[in-house]
């Protein structure tokens, strides 16, 4: 086994994942190669330094705290009823906004156009002088159009 092969398999060796011939070859190389031996020992020390098993003590106090919090979660809060009445659901505000937009859009489509004169007529009438037509001119156009 050479450097590169051991480098590839170093963590598998460390995790005890190698077996048989592969394991023997890796161990033999590790014993004879100073560089690989150092790299392996380096990881061992790194893992030991940074990943210690923390000391934890079992306690009834912890169990009580969890159970207390569970109890507290089930208690009805006085403000809850008001909040529920004011905002029946989190979809309330967006739903109302969508409904309002829909009503406005519908209003735009079905509402009758109050002007009997088309926009094109209005614009063309002021084209020559590049000014908007006067009320009298507009009235004249409308009368002509109707006749």
């Amino acid at each position, binding site marked *: 086994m050479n450097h590169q092969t051991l480098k590839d398999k170093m*963590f*598998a060796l460390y*995790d005890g*994942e190698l077996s048989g011939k592969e394991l023997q070859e890796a161990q033999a190389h590790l014993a004879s190669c100073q560089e690989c031996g*150092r790299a392996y020992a*380096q*990881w061992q*020390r*790194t*893992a*030991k*330094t*940074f*990943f*210690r*098993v*923390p000391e*934890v*003590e*079992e*306690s*009834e106090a*912890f*169990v009580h*705290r*969890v*159970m207390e*919090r*569970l109890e507290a*979660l089930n208690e009805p809060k006085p403000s809850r009823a008001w909040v529920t009445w004011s905002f029946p659901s989190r979809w309330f505000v967006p739903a109302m906004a969508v409904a309002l937009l829909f009503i406005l859009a519908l209003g735009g489509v079905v509402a009758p156009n109050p002007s009997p004169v088309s926009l094109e007529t209005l614009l063309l009438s002021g084209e020559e002088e590049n000014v908007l037509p006067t009320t009298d001119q507009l009235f004249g156009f409308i009368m002509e159009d109707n006749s």
Partner: protein
Amino acid sequence: MEDLELIQRICSGEREAYSDLVRLYQSRVLRLCTSLLGDANSAEDAAQDVFLKVYRVLPTFRGDASFSTWLYRIAANHCKDLLRKRKREKTESWEGLLEKHGDTIEQMLAVKESPKPSAGDAELVEKVLSQLAPDYRIILTLREAQGLSYQEIADTLQCSLDAVKARLRRAREALQDKLRHIYRSESV
């Protein structure tokens, strides 16, 4: 008592049975949270949150994996969220940390059989590990500190064995890469 029996009692409304479940698994959850979050206070809060979450979703436990694996998954995911939040707030750069504490880290790594670490050492370890991506820290912790097998890690993280091996390798290389300056000065 079997986990499943206990879970059935809890799901049928026997809330007191839940305290038995908490009692049974508190040290495992606390140990994982402490390993992942570093300090005891955050770990205690996180472990409590985990047990509250577990209580709420207990009816969804189908028994595909063992209860402890399922519990570990919830705990690991909860801690991952907390680590991500911390990471967003983190200000100290790796270079800055190395400049300030490089010598101490080197000394810590040089000791072959170290006794219980001091509070300062533990804080420094936390600072170093907080430089890793949360996913890397979790997989390394599950393997190195919790001693889970590849298969157990795969079940906990819900990924394939190959993914565990690849991620574990990348995580180890990332940590080694961070420490390469220290390794280099060590070998001189």
